[in-house]
């Protein structure tokens, strides 16, 4: 993975991809090495967006570990936040001026790895009624994993919230958050 966030190159690749898409093609189809490079910059931006919005994740996981919500509601909300993160990323990628002003926090990588683990755990969670050998983890293991990850999330020292990606929530999530 490219660790250096070369914004000039990132924007160059985004422009190239957009240009190809306007001709019914894409970097994915034309040049897999450059496509892979574009993905690597996308990951860095995405990690920063996750980190800027970390309080939403921490708050949600806390609700689960304190039994305020169950695993089903956790997953519905978790994937909703993820969708919003992806939408923010798409918006930033379309706005090159905004993209060129993005700063990357060194802790964003560490935090996003925890979110990736939670995503994987949410997908792997299986009902207790499923056989032992079936793919996935039980609710018991899921809970233990989330409790451990929650502590790790809190231990990542927080910095003041970012001014580049202010809180961004759809109406539905606000309603869900209010209700839950």
């Amino acid at each position: 993975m490219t660790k250096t966030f070369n914004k000039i190159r990132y924007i160059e690749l985004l422009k190239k991809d957009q240009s190809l898409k306007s001709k019914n093609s894409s970097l994915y189809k034309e040049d897999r090495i450059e496509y892979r490079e574009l993905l690597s910059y996308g990951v860095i931006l995405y990690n920063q967006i996750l980190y800027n919005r970390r309080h939403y994740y921490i708050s949600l996981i806390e609700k689960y570990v304190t039994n305020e919500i169950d695993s089903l509601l956790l997953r519905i909300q978790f994937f909703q936040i993820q969708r919003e993160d992806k939408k923010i990323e798409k918006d930033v990628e379309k706005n090159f001026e905004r993209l060129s002003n993005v700063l990357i926090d060194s802790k964003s990588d560490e935090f996003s790895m925890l979110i990736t683990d939670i995503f994987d755990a949410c997908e792997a969670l299986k009902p207790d009624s499923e056989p032992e050998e079936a793919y996935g983890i039980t609710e018991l293991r899921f809970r233990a994993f989330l409790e451990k990850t929650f502590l790790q999330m809190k231990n990542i020292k927080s910095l003041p919230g970012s001014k580049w990606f202010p809180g961004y929530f759809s109406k539905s999530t606000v309603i869900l958050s209010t209700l839950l």
Partner: protein
Amino acid sequence: MPFFIDETTARKKIYHAPDFNVALPDNPDLEYVKSLSTKYRLKYLSDQSILPQKCVGEYMKKLGEHVLDPTTEIQVGTLGGNGATKDWNESIPGTHVFNSNTGNDVFFADDGFKFHTGMKFNYVQRIDLEDNNNIL
């Protein structure tokens, strides 16, 4: 290669339906859901009148359209390779049906070519698929 999308699995993975532009039903009874125990919440949300057949059917239809889309590519791979490193379980061999334009992927397990999950990838998952033919 025949792929199978069953309603039970689609219902289980319904939280990914918005990735395929299928709206989850507005649920005016979330307060009621909160008042139920976990066991009854799951039963409640399995009720077809709560999570209607129409919504699940629409998700299944969109999954099918994704598979049939000529710009979608088929790629042999696995699901759960990263979970396997955490000792969660063995990864599942199967087939990714990925569309680079939408970023959506549907995974079918080799065992019966049955639908396992379908969602829009983030960049981390796209890289995992690109480098390792794996997700999760």
